């Protein structure tokens, strides 16, 4: 076992903050999912359609899971390397036979484990949605996997910022800014760009803007899968989802490189 992963697990398991986050996560999914269920049942004038209810629960839980994980993933990893600097423990680590990649890997496994563990907590809620029906198992599993994948990507990027910046607060702030920029600003810019390209009626530009600003959005694939878009154009939708995943992987890879570069900069 990677020693840094071992230490991460050892330390994090004792952190009260971690358990509070997990509790908050669980509670929010429970309240949100339960609320949607209650509203659906109470507001329904006719008999409740099990499929519609199942789809409602599943999509609500999946979107809520995605949103929470995108916020929590950077929180789980943005401090991991910067904290070593703040605690002045990096010299002791560099004065060992391990290389910087080993440190990055251990930190990464640590934050990824946290994400997977949090994600596992929502499985009971999803199974309720599955029991009610309305959504196929493969679609639900794919949405869940995409949520996890995008969370892992955000965690990796945050780790990169953690390696790059000396203070964990800076790493948290930059990770948050990056997340908001991608989630909110980029789609807004994309929409403005599309509106403008409508005026000039240049189709190529529209496609380019869509791929640049919209099709790589963390929620894009899951929206495609849950909505009817997949049924209408399965090949094109699959291609676009694959494109989004590829962009996430590239961004995550850049995060890894940043983390390693940050550690390498310690020896100057």
């Amino acid at each position, binding site marked *: 076992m990677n020693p840094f992963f071992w230490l991460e697990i050892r330390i994090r398991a004792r952190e009260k903050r971690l358990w509070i986050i997990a509790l908050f996560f669980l509670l929010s999914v429970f309240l949100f999912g339960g609320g949607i269920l209650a509203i659906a049942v109470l507001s329904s004038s006719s008999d409740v359609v099990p499929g519609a209810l199942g789809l409602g629960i599943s999509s609500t839980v999946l979107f809520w899971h995605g949103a929470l994980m995108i916020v929590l993933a950077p929180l789980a990893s943005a401090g991991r390397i910067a904290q070593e600097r703040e605690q002045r423990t990096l010299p002791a680590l560099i*004065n060992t036979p*391990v290389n910087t990649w080993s440190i990055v890997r251990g930190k990464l496994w640590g934050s990824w484990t946290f994400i997977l563990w949090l994600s596992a907590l929502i499985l009971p809620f999803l199974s309720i949605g599955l029991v009610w029906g309305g959504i196929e198992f493969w679609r639900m599993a794919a949405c869940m996997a995409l949520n996890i994948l995008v969370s892992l990507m955000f965690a990796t990027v945050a780790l990169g910022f953690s390696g790059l910046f000396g203070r964990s607060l800076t790493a948290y702030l930059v990770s948050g800014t990056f997340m908001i920029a991608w989630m909110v600003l980029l789609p807004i810019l994309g929409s403005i760009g599309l509106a403008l390209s409508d005026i000039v009626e240049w189709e190529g530009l529209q496609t380019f803007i869509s791929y640049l600003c919209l099709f790589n959005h963390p929620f894009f694939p899951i929206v495609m899968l849950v909505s009817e878009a997949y049924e209408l154009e399965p090949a094109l939708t699959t291609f676009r989802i694959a494109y989004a995943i590829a962009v996430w992987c590239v961004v995550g890879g850049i995060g890894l490189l940043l983390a390693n570069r940050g550690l390498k900069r310690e020896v100057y």
Partner: protein
Amino acid sequence: MSLVVSAIHKTYPNGIKALKGVDLSIEPGEVFGLVGPNGAGKSTLLKVISGLLRAESGAIRYNAEDITGQPARAARFIGLMPDPLGVYTDITTWDYLEFFGRVLGLTEEERKTRIADVVQELELGAWLNEEVETLSAGWQRRAALGRILLAKTPVLLLDEPAAGLDISARKELLDIVRRLASQDRSIVVSSHILPELQDLADRFGILDDGEWKNVTEGQPFFQRADLDRGLATPFAEIKCSDPAAACRALSPDHQAEESAPGVIRILTPQGKDSVAAAVRDLCGQGIDVYEVRPARRDLGDVVLQVLDDNEGGDRK
């Protein structure tokens, strides 16, 4: 079987030249005392040796193996206890040692054995289940030393190991360092606590402004025995009836000065002959001489004098 540092130059990104051609060679079993004012380059030198900082030029070799600027390779031979000491929060002493045992790539069996040895050597047994963060400064330093000892490196670099420790913790830690040196390890100790360092180290060097300062003509290093002999400029202390008159009678040849009430200190370049001549002169002047003894110069005196001389030299 030694650590050899040759002509190391290090300039920080802000342009400060921290080391200007520093040489050093340390033999197994030797404790080297690294002395100098703040900002002299002591910590920089230790970090460069251990590979934590990269030198522009120069070489560091252990047993002729080049380890310059290669922290992972240097770590096989060199253990650094940095100052300030960094400790993990939320981790017990046992976790701390276990973690570094894993980092070193030790097998479970090796970890068990070595941790047990280190715990016994450093008497850490009572603190194994305590969080490192909550330990006193002295025990934290022991834990950090334990981390280095797990690697069984033949060279230990200790940067201010006694900083912030009370007298008894200091004494205990220095006893441990002595024991480690007796196990044929080469140890470099950087410290501002000169009386302890004087008792601990076999050899000393004074670093200032990134270079060794000569203590005697062309000689930057000196032994503890040299201190006892008064280095190259021996002194004697004479207890007499009239110190003021004695100073007048003996200066300028002996550079006499009153060092304590009723006691003068004189320069004795010719050893016993100088002492005999001074006593003769005093008796000839009617000054009673009660006691004559060689004056020991402690490390602090030497460091201050060398630094003062060098400042004077620079000014000239």
